[in-house]
């Protein structure tokens, strides 16, 4: 996707420093038109900073950002016409209705009456919000507030949409609606960049940038990133999951055994080679009811392996 499509976001040597060593440092990346690019990384890795810099609401200490050819730093006002930034807490007016909030943002972006009504109607239909146009924003559920925030962010048809933790506190069904809207925008050619802490969301992006301490460690599709996972993963399901974890600790080839609900996720150097020994150790520990199977790594597993447990904070 990167090579074939023209880049709409081009970031070069971007730097922003804060007291305490936080910030971002010499960052380079490009997003192609129609990508859904996700920034993932530990707290303090620079996810929100990137969003703010791309959105033109913060000035970098060095480097350049071009969005659709416009230099965001030299000409932020022109850039803002093409970019929409939805921060973690989008500023809805709780006392205003859904319609009134949309009106307000449409006024802000000087959208004419005809196209604003047409666009609002379409966005509200896509998000299932049409029946709630007269409801005050303060009385909407978390999921609906996020969808209204998105509608307000999209009222001026941006080329690039920036979302910081877009579905925090939103239930899975509403989250699916939200993502369906994002994929719809992508079809219209809107490029989306988002920051997230959740693998639920990271897995839905077309490409991910893994940030750590202000640098981009890896950048690729979710499936390509998972191939970076050192070793192999197995899942053991048992009512005696805790005893199983203890039995596996220190076994040859077992790099980690992590309790996850009623399962143990086992990181091994070679699943084929170690299965016999693992089964043997579990049987010896009296764990009869068990199911050992290969497990496809998630982005979270990769994250833990690359950054080390607890190593980031």
């Amino acid at each position, binding site marked *: 996707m990167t090579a074939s499509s023209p880049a709409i976001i081009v970031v070069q040597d971007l730097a922003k420093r804060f007291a305490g060593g936080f910030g971002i440092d010499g960052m380079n990346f490009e997003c192609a038109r129609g990508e859904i690019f996700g920034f993932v990384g530990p707290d303090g*890795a620079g996810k929100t900073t990137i969003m703010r810099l791309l959105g033109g609401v913060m000035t970098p200490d060095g480097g350049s950002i071009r969005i659709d050819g416009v230099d965001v730093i030299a000409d932020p006002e022109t850039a803002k016409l093409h970019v929409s930034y939805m921060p973690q807490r989008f500023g809805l007016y709780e006392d205003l209705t859904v319609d009134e909030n949309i009106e307000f943002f449409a006024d802000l972006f000087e959208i004419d009456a005809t196209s604003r009504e047409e666009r609002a109607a379409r966005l509200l239909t896509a998000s299932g919000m049409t029946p709630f146009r007269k*409801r005050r924003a303060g009385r909407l559920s978390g999921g609906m507030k996020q969808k209204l925030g998105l509608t307000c962010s999209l009222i001026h048809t941006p080329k690039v949409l920036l979302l910081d933790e877009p579905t*925090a506190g939103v239930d899975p069904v509403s989250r699916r609606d939200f*993502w369906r809207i994002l994929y719809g925008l992508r079809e219209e050619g809107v490029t989306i960049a988002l920051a997230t802490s959740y693998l639920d969301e990271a897995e839905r992006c077309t490409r991910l940038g893994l940030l750590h301490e202000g640098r981009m460690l890896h950048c690729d*599709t979710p499936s390509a990133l998972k191939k970076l996972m050192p070793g192999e993963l197995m899942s053991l399901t048992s009512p005696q999951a*805790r005893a199983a974890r203890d039995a596996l600790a220190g076994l040859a080839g077992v790099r980690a055994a992590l309790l996850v*609900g009623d399962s143990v996720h086992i990181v091994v150097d070679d699943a084929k080679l170690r299965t016999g020994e693992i089964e043997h150790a579990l049987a010896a520990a009296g764990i009869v009811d068990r199911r050992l199977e290969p497990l496809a790594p998630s982005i979270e597993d990769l994250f833990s392996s690359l950054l080390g447990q607890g190593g980031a904070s």
Partner: protein
Amino acid sequence: MSPDAPEGEARIVTERLAKRFGAFTAVNEVSFSVRRGEIMGFLGPNGAGKSTLIRMLCGLLRPTSGRAEVAGLDVARNPERVRAVIGYMSQKFSLYNDLSVIENLRFFGGIYGVRGKRLAERVEFAIEMAGLAGRADTAVADLSGGWKQRLALGCAVLHQPPILFLDEPTSGVDPTSRRRFWDLIYALSEQGVTVLVTTHYMDEAEYCNRIALINRGRLVALGSPSELKRGAAEGRLLLVECDDVGPLLEALESAPGVRDVAPFGSSLHLLVDDPAADIPKIERFLAARGLGWTRVEPIKPTLEDVFVRLVGDGRLEEATP
């Protein structure tokens, strides 16, 4: 081990617990039990009744009918005593940003009635547990999300409650911090603390021993994460891999037999009723529309798939304006 009859001592028991607000039934005759040291997750759409249920279990809201016991105490008869045996931590849990780590701990210790030598011991324990040794005098405002979360947990367990409620505990913290947080929760659970968690994130739900799925005030599923995945959606989830998900997403939403379509990067997840019959149908459907794909195959459902399957469009609040 049957999820409905857990082994070990039950620490939370509800029997046909209900709460009505006028004509609206927020919690509708919910019965379950949670044993000592168990970690139970509560999942459900916004407005499903999770918060009302938790508030009743915390002794903050009186049930309309039915019964609930927490650590052997009836929540309707002993709401005050119930509040003394529980610890509560929420995403909205407000640590005082301008106070230091140790000042926050002392403040919350005071609220929970922990004093003197015991307070000093517990504060030391909480600092150790949160990994904040050497940072006792740091202002909370200068801590990252993960540290704050662990400190908030430390504050919630200062009085050594046998029951711990976590309301969206790791919202907005990164996966590494989340893993560390859950290691702490597992350690507490191994010491016998019973933990109730509400969350919207399936990454987090996976960490629970059992999950109760609540929809429209009713308990619609109860079981371990793997039991739920085996039960509700196993064999009904298909992966469609393709070069461009957009056109397929739109087309498949109206394809016969397809109950749900969700985009995941360069693939789609489809929920169907009968994969053996539906795979060829879907392939014919796509071919007839000239839409290309590289692979259609059954995959294991995630908890989110289970959630969507069981809750579907039953979002009460969003269904009625």
